[in-house]
């Protein structure tokens, strides 16, 4: 259970939300309305006030790196810190993630590729895979399929659905009403920095 109580920072919030395992909450609203800030506050990447807890364990009671391994934020334009794809994954990832890699329509040898060679869409799918690799309990997805072709979008949605069925909690920023209809079990509209 993810509980968010009066989460806020300067002009954003307060936000209140409670999500049970397997729930997917779509976070919708115009650009600049504070959707990304909301997700970043949950992951504790931006300083914030209020309470966030996962399975009754308060965010502040856990070291931040550990909290973020459980509650993982995936940026709309994810960063890369090494030259090859493989350096961004653990050594056993190619084997343990093989099925999800295939579902995301990424070739088997993708781990050997240099990051510079990846297309925007490939980067986005690999970043989703990278976020799933850590086995988070909550995934905060910031427009995860914005630059994907329709087939890859379906692949990514299938991967998310499968994890969701296994108990993953998802907050999903999306501008695509059809995607929201396909994935979401609930919805939070955001406007002007607060829940609308």
């Amino acid at each position, binding site marked *: 259970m993810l509980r968010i109580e009066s989460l806020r920072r300067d002009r954003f919030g307060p936000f209140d939300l409670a999500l049970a395992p397997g729930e997917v909450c779509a976070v919708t609203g115009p650009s600049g309305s504070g959707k990304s800030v909301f997700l970043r506050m949950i992951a*504790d*990447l931006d300083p914030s006030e209020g309470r966030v807890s996962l399975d009754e364990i308060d965010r502040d009671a856990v070291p*931040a790196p550990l909290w*973020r391994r459980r509650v993982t934020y995936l*940026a709309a334009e994810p960063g*890369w810190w090494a030259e090859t794809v493989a350096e961004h994954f653990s050594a056993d990832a190619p084997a343990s993630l093989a099925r999800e890699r295939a579902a995301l329509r990424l070739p088997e040898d993708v781990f050997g590729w240099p990051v510079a060679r990846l297309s925007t869409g490939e980067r986005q799918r690999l970043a989703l895979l990278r976020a799933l690799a*850590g086995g988070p309990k909550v995934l905060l997805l910031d427009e995860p399929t914005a630059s994907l072709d329709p087939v890859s979008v379906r692949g990514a949605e299938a991967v998310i659905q499968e994890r969701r069925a296994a108990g993953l909690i998802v907050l999903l920023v999306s501008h695509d009403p059809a995607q929201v209809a396909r994935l979401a079990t609930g919805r939070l509209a955001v406007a002007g920095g607060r829940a609308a």
Partner: protein
Amino acid sequence: MSPSPGPLDLALGAGFVLVNAGLSAALGLGLSRTVLVAACRLVAQLTLVGLVLRTVFGLGAPGPVIAVVAVMALAAAYEIGARQERPLRGAWRYLLGGAVTAGATVIAVAVGLAALRPQPWWDPHALIPLAGIVLGSVMSGVAIGLNGFTGGVRRERAAIEARLALGATRDEALAPLIRSAIRAGLIPVLNQMAAAGLITLPGMMTGQILAGQDPQGAAAAQILILFLLAGASGLGVTGAVFLAARRLTDARHRLRLERLG
């Protein structure tokens, strides 16, 4: 011993600077003004320093000598802050680099005094040039290291935050940038050591030889100085970059770029 250069001799050298300014104007580098201002500053600063030092040397007391060194350290702190493309906000801009530079200089000067054993220990003939040369070297290393680090953090923001978001600690997320910034900050002093004698005659040694000293003795003194510079730069650059890394993150392992100007 060769005589010190007179006004006419300096005018000859000044003509050489004017050639530089003229070249800059002709090529449209936009540096002519800067070159001339820097040359004028140099003349004013060194003339003034010569006067002040002569007075301090004449006083024969430790207080004024320490005061001169303190003023030099303050100037170094200012220069480090002024050279930052994206400085830390607030007093940190001058405080961080200045404190680290001062600390590293005190240690290096203590080692230097232990080796040279001047009588008394605060003899301005030893302490002031020693502190000056160490300050200058640490200052440029720290300025380069800090500039490289803050620039790198800005540029690599997405990569750093991606690592943090996946559960890396701030030390893990910043390690590559910390390493490359320290390396960049140490390159000048490493070059100085490697090139000394072969490509350049270090300034101090040049001065001593021009002033008529035995080249062998000048070389020994220069070796000691370069060791001090290398040690002090290592301490200063490492300390400054690590402190900047702390300042740009917080206890919850967040990147705090708003603390950068």
